[in-house]
C-alpha cells in the first residue's frame, strides 16, 4: 500500500467503502468541510454533500439518527469529534445501538460505525484529552477497535463499516500525522486479532493505540541491555484476542500492559484478570500496568507530559517485572 499517514489511511478506508457501497453515509460536525482534523476532507466533493452530512452540536441525537438510519438499512459512520463528548451520546450508544439486536431477539441489526478521536495531544485540557475505551468493554453488543498505525487504521475502518454490529472506532489524535509503516505483523489481520509486532522470550508488553510506539521504543532500548521483549498490539478490545496474549505469556512468564487511559478501571484490568485466569501458573511476576495516573488530564505542559506514559516508564516496568521475586 502507498505510504499514508494514519489520518489519510482512515480517510482512504472510509472512502473506499463509500465508493463501493452507496449506503455508507457520514454524519458529524463540519464533516463536509473535513472536520477539524481533515479526516473527511474531499469526500463531499467526490461523492456529494448528501453522503457527508454536517450536523448541529447535538451529539446524542445525531448518534440516534445514525442508529435509526442503520436500522433502516444504511451503514452510517458517525463522527464524535472528541471521545470526551461521547458522554452526551451514551444513552443512544449503550441503550439503543448496543442492545437492539439482542432485545429484538435478532429482528434488528445496527451496522453502525462510530468514529471518535481520543487521547492527550496539544495541551487541550481535561475536556479534550480523555481515553474512555474501557467503558465500552463493559457494554455487551458493541465492538471496539483502536488502531495504532496507518495500515491497521485503513483495514480496521473497512472491517468496521462492513460489520453488522455497532463498532466504536477509536482514533488517537497524536497519531494522525504519523507515517510509521505498519510492521508485517500488523497489517491485513482480521479485526479480532491482536498483532505480535516483535517477538521475544523475556517479557510480553501488550500495548494499545498510541502506546504501541513507546512500547516498541522500550523494546529497542531493552534489547541493548540484552532483554528481549515481545510486543503485542491489542488492536481490538472487543473482541479481545486473549489467546494471542496467553500464548505469549506462557512463553515469557511476564506481562506488562500499557495504555494511556487512567489505570483504575482501565483496559489493563480486564487484560490482567483474563490472563491470570488462564496463565497464572506460568507467571513468574505480577502482571504490571503502565497507565496514566488516576487524575483528570491536566493542561500545563509539564503536567501533561507527566500524565502520558512513555518509553522510560515502560522500561522501568519491565525491569520491575524481571526483578520481581516472591517476598
Amino acid at each position, binding site marked *: 500500500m502507498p505510504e499514508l499517514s494514519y489520518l489519510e489511511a482512515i480517510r482512504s478506508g472510509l472512502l473506499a467503502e463509500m465508493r463501493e457501497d452507496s449506503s455508507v453515509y457520514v454524519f458529524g460536525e463540519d464533516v463536509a468541510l473535513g472536520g477539524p482534523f481533515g479526516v473527511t476532507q474531499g469526500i463531499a466533493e467526490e461523492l456529494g454533500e448528501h453522503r457527508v452530512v454536517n450536523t448541529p452540536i447535538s451529539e446524542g441525537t445525531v448518534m440516534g439518527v445514525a442508529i435509526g438510519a442503520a436500522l433502516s438499512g444504511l451503514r452510517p459512520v458517525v463522527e464524535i469529534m472528541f471521545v470526551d463528548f461521547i458522554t452526551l451520546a451514551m444513552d443512544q450508544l449503550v441503550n439503543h445501538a448496543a442492545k437492539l439486536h439482542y432485545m429484538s431477539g*435478532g429482528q434488528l441489526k445496527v451496522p453502525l460505525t462510530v468514529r471518535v478521536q481520543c487521547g492527550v495531544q496539544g495541551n487541550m485540557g481535561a475536556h479534550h484529552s480523555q481515553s474512555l475505551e474501557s467503558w465500552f468493554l463493559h457494554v455487551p453488543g458493541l465492538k471496539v477497535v483502536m488502531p495504532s498505525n496507518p495500515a491497521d487504521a485503513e483495514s480496521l475502518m473497512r472491517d468496521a463499516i462492513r460489520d453488522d454490529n455497532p463498532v466504536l472506532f477509536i482514533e488517537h489524535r497524536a497519531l494522525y500525522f504519523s507515517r510509521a509503516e505498519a510492521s508485517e505483523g500488523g497489517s491485513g489481520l482480521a479485526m479480532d486479532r491482536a498483532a505480535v509486532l516483535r517477538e521475544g522470550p523475556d517479557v510480553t508488553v501488550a500495548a494499545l493505540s498510541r502506546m504501541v510506539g513507546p512500547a516498541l521504543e522500550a523494546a529497542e532500548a531493552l534489547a541493548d541491555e540484552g532483554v528481549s521483549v515481545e510486543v503485542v498490539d491489542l488492536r481490538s478490545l472487543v473482541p479481545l484476542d486473549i489467546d494471542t496474549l496467553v500464548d505469549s505469556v506462557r512463553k515469557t512468564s511476564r506481562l506488562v500492559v500499557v495504555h494511556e487511559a487512567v489505570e483504575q478501571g482501565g483496559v489493563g484490568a480486564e487484560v490482567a484478570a483474563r490472563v491470570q485466569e488462564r496463565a497464572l501458573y506460568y507467571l513468574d511476576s505480577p502482571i504490571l500496568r503502565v497507565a496514566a495516573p488516576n487524575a483528570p488530564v491536566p493542561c500545563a505542559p509539564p503536567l501533561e507530559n507527566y500524565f502520558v506514559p512513555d518509553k522510560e516508564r515502560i522500561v522501568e516496568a519491565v525491569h520491575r517485572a524481571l526483578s520481581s521475586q516472591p517476598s
Partner: protein
Amino acid sequence: MKAAKRGSTAKQGSARGAGGNGNRELLSLLRRMWVIRAFEEKVSALYAAREIVGLLHLGIGQEAVAVGVCSLLDADDQVYGGHRSHGHAIAKGADLNRLMAELAGRVTGYCRGKGGSMHVVAAETGFVTASGVVGGTVPLALGAAFAAREKGAGRVAVVFFGDGAGQTGPFHESLNIASLWRLPVIFVCENNGYAEFTPLSAHTKVERLAQHAGTYGIPSATVDGNDILAVRKAMGRAVDNARAGKGPTFVECLTYRLRGHYEGDPGKYRELSQLADWKKKDPIARFVRVLKRRQAASAEDFAKAESDARALVEAAAEFALSSPWPEPEETATQVCA
C-alpha cells in the same frame, strides 16, 4: 395471517391518502381499537393473576391515537414507540399471538422473550421498536426518515411519545434536526397530562407542546386525541406533507390514560372525578356514538367488533401461555449480529 389482514387494512387506509371515511373503513377502525382495548384488558388480568410479570404500562383510553395514526400508514412506513406502546404495535399490524407471547416471556414472542413490554419490536410490520428510555426513540425515527428520504420511495417515519418526553433534550435536538433537514418524520405526542405521578404543569410552563414545533416552523396541530376522526384528519395532512417532501409535522393528541402509570400504581395523585370525566370521553364509546349517529353500522356490528376482538385476544393469551419458555442458554445468544 391476522397480522397480514390488519397490515393490508392499514394499506387500504393510506391508499386513500388521508384515509377514506367509508363505513367499512370506519368499522375497521372501531375493530382495531377494540382489539387494542381487549388486548390490554387481558394483559392487565394476566398480570393480576401473575401469569405475566414485569413493568407494564397500558394505554387503555388512548387507543384512538394509535389506531388513528397507524390507519394512515403503509406497511413499510416505519413506526417507533416508547414504554407504553402495545397499542402502537398492534395498530401497525403486530401479530397478537407473538406480542402476547413476548409480554408473557415466551420464546414464541417477537423478541423470543428478551425484550418484554417496554421493548416491543415487530420489525416485519414496520413497528421498529419501543424503548424503556423516555424520549429515546425520537432521534431513531429521524434516522428512519433520513433513510426513507435517501431511498426516495415516499416512505415516512412516525414516532409516538408522551408529554413527559417533551422536556427531554433529545426531543428538542430532534425537532431542530427534523426541521433543518426537512425529514419525512411525524412527531405524534400523546399528551395524557401526566408523567408518572405529576401533571404536565409540574414539568413545564408550556401549555401546548406543539408550540415547540412552531419555533422551528414545523407545522403542527393539537387535536382531541380521544376523537379518532380528529386524529386521522391531522395525521392525513401530516402524511401527505411528508410523502410530498415537505418535511416534518407535529401532531399533539390530548388524551388520558384510564389506568395507572404502571400496572399496580395506586394512582393516588389523580382525582377520581377527573378519572370519571375522562371515562365519559372513552374513545371507543365515543366513536360508537358517532357511528351510530351516522348509522354506519348495525347494533350487532358493534357487538361483534368487541366480541371478535375478545376472541382474538383470548386465542392470543392461549397461544402465549401454552408456548414454551426460552432456554436459559439463550441468555447469552444474539448479543452480536
